[in-house]
């Protein structure tokens, strides 16, 4: 199948700094990709290039279109939520729905109203009267009512409480996602999304630090929890990363012999957050 997003040598400079540095990406349809990186790693810059909000060097094709040139046409098939508070504050909910319906060919008013009926948002509300969580619900309802092929979420749950955050991803997964659709998420709340992701994309200093499916991650990486006595032996097997927790030594290995490791202690699949920290540290040393 043709990739939804395909980049070759994607580069973005701001003066002398390389915000995105010759990245190659291929994202096939039907995936939920987590784009994860530290602050200033180039996540948002990469997303902006993909959404046609920024110029770039290199080749980039999103659903077969060049985003820098065809933003308007591309937006018929791409939706994005760029953090929570970007809905215009002066607008009323019914005006927002009217407007989206008239501008977006694939928007369904019924679907949108159906989603909103499960919330406290009413058509007469002005956006500025809504709480942060309700604005996020409204934006998600608008976006889920659009039959798009790519959904881009940039820190969609920033500043929301834990109930809204859980519900946000539950709705997304249960009511929206299917094999035809692709979701690209950036977030710092990795723990929240790791169970819904199918693919991981770590980015650091404008470069891709890791590109793998979740299955590959489970196959490749393993975490060993060893006692202090076995630490020396575990260290000799070249872990990527070591940390100490309550006197226990935790090692993270890439492509290690599991049978050998199992003799030294308990084995786990590392969490995305731990893998992220290990990858970032490894690249720095």
């Amino acid at each position, binding site marked *: 199948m043709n990739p939804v997003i395909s980049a070759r040598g994607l580069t973005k400079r701001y003066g002398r700094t390389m915000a995105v540095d010759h990245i190659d990406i291929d994202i096939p349809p039907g995936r939920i990709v987590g784009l994860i990186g530290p602050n200033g790693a180039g996540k948002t810059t990469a997303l902006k290039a993909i*959404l046609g*909000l920024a110029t770039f060097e290199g080749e980039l094709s999103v659903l077969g279109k060049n985003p820098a040139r065809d*933003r308007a046409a591309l*937006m018929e098939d791409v939706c994005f939520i760029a953090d929570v508070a*970007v809905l215009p*504050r002066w*607008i009323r909910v019914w005006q927002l729905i*009217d407007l989206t319906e*008239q501008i*977006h060919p694939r928007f369904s008013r019924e679907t949108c109203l159906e989603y909103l009926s499960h919330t406290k948002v009413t058509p007469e509300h002005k956006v500025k009267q809504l709480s942060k969580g309700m604005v996020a619900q409204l934006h998600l309802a608008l976006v889920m009512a659009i039959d798009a092929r790519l959904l881009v979420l940039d820190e969609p749950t920033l500043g929301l409480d834990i109930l809204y955050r859980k519900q946000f991803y539950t709705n997304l997964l249960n009511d929206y996602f299917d094999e035809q659709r692709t979701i690209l998420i950036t977030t710092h709340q990795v723990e929240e999304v790791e169970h819904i992701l199918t693919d991981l994309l770590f980015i650091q200093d404008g470069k891709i630090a890791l590109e793998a499916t979740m299955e590959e991650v489970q196959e490749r990486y393993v975490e060993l929890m060893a006692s202090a006595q076995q630490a020396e032996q575990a260290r000799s097997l070249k872990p990527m990363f070591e940390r100490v927790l309550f006197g226990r030594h935790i090692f993270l290995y890439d492509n290690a012999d599991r049978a050998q490791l199992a003799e030294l202690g308990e084995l786990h699949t590392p969490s995305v957050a731990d893998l992220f920290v290990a990858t970032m540290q490894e690249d720095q040393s």
Partner: protein
Amino acid sequence: MKRMIALLRREFWENKGAFRTTPLVIGGIYIAFLLMAIFTTAHIDDDLYTFREAVHVLAGRPAEFRGMIMYQSMLGSSVFFTVVMSFVIFFYLLGSLYDDRKDRSILFWKSLPASDTLTVASKLLSAMFIIPVFFLAITVLTHIIMAVIGSLMVLGVDGNPWTLFLSVSSPLKAWGMIAASYFAQSIWALPLYGWLMLVSAFAPRVPLLFATLPPLVFAVLQTWIEFLRTFTLKNNLMGLIGEWLFNSPAILTAEVHDGEGGIALGIPLTKDFDHAVTLANMIDRLFSTQMLIGLIVAAVFLTTALWLRHRAAES
């Protein structure tokens, strides 16, 4: 087309106060003044004797004279609307490409499949047509209400409003003339509109300062350098802008002296154009060299504004 209409509605929703409430308030002020004048007259004038006499005297004057008075006062009363409208358009355009950058809602607008060209066009069209149409409609409404009140007053002193002033006036001609002057002004003012949109697209903050300071500084420097070179004060940018204002095809001057109505296009200080309120004079301005240069300047400003809008969400 459907998208353009949706975007125009958006401009109206966002700026209801400026587009609709402002002219309604002006109409309200006119009507309030009329009612105040009536109550004052009723209060000091026994049995409306003076008013009755005035109606009587007026009825004795020729129909052309009464028609002329009506026509001139309709055009004259539009000036207040026109001047306020200029301010409304000025501030509307100054915020048009700035406000959504400031509150970051540009990220929502850019997530809709509407091109930047369409967006910029919808804002320019709002300034050129939508705002004038609102002001025009409310001017007409105000004239009608005032005519009704006037008619009741004349009926109250046993006069006949129909023969006195209604039948001799030509409202459609007056309204048509105001409408024509508005749309001629929309084209005449394009360089200013383009400049305001350009500032709105690039100003990092306080667009008002960015809109007014550079031309001012430029004009002062120009005057100073010119003075150093020639020891004379000649035309500079401010002079150019003044000339542009004086020659405007909008009805901006309304005064009455020696019984003659002084209704004029622009401000009749220079002699570049005939300032009488006629369609021919409006068209004359639109086919002038000044206008041609203005259109080129406007095209440069608007293209740059569009280019900036295209990149507006980068940082």
